């Protein structure tokens, strides 16, 4: 699914910002990314020549994050009451904020992942908007 803001960026940003070169290594065909040149606009009173932007490579030096995942899955009965008496009939399903606790079904785990993915998508769209705004400000200069 393509986030709408990417389309907006694809349309607006190239014309608005001053991109000297697309940064390498992004590896994403739909994501418009670039490093602004940070050139000084005509309205800049400083008058001094600006140093060219130094694009920093985005080459993700990847350290492994480990294998993740829980190795053991305690039984539902073993879950502590966390200091307070659980109401009768209380579900032991994971709280909505965190990821699924052990013992959930594949379906439930995938549903949780899908829910987080939706939030992630929203967050990244907002990130796009902020980056576009930063670009626009830099393009305005001064």
């Amino acid at each position: 699914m393509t986030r709408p803001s990417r389309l907006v960026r694809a349309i607006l940003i190239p014309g608005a910002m001053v991109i000297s070169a697309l940064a390498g290594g992004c590896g994403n065909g739909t994501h418009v990314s670039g490093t602004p040149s940070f050139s000084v606009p005509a309205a800049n009173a400083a008058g001094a020549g600006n140093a060219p932007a130094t694009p920093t490579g985005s080459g993700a030096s990847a350290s492994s994050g480990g294998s993740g995942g829980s190795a053991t899955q305690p039984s539902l009965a073993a879950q502590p009451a966390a200091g307070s008496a659980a109401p009768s009939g209380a579900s032991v399903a994971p709280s909505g904020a965190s990821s699924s606790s052990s013992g959930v079904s594949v379906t439930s785990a995938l549903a949780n992942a899908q829910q987080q993915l939706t939030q992630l998508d929203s967050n990244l769209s907002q990130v796009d908007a902020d980056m576009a705004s930063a670009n626009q400000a830099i393009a305005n200069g001064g």
Partner: protein
Amino acid sequence: MKRSRITALLAVSAAALAGAVGLVPLLGAGTASAATAATPAISSTARTQAETAISIRITDLNSALTLVQQTGWFVGSDQAALENIITGDLNGNGQAEGLVNLATTIRNETNPANFWSEFQSIYTDYRVFALALPQVHLVRVADRMTTNVVPNLTSIDTDLSQAIAKEAVEGKNVQAAQQQVANLETQIATIGQKTTGVSTGLLALTPAQWNANHGAVAPYWGDVQAADSAAIQGEKDVRAALEDLQ
């Protein structure tokens, strides 16, 4: 003859200065005498341009202040630091009088030399577009990565790992999904690396530092961009894993 050369030189110098800040004309129309040319009047056009430049910046800073105050994912004292930067630019910060006061100063200025200096200071003392607004937006991005994006991806990582473990127990081939999750974890680590120190570094930058190094924001921009790219790649990894598991 001699007098006209001086007049011409002064006129050229004034034009060059005006051009340097995009002001045409900054100073009033040339006059017949060198004495008058040496102390030209401040043109209404220049005054309007200065006031407009300040007004635009004040408007954008006020919008940025609202944005910062409404942002709920800042880390630590980043929100307060951004508010200090913005309100300092607006109302003064000990280094500069603030754009609100500067507008009044410029409006009442009658000395051309002072006017010129004050006009320059709209840019050199504040760097609203080159620095302050990028600080706001890039810190918002870096902190959103820390507060929202990484937890999103980490939660998904856990969910997918659990699903993979269960599918594996049932004898299903989960190699592809495992690889996607491994890739996802790499992206999570990259986001953490790239955003570490970004907000602190950005918030420490001052207009004077930007004046000395116009590329001062660029490294932080690069880091934020790399983190964003990693997040986008992580999102793709998640989608691929979900597809493998469903």
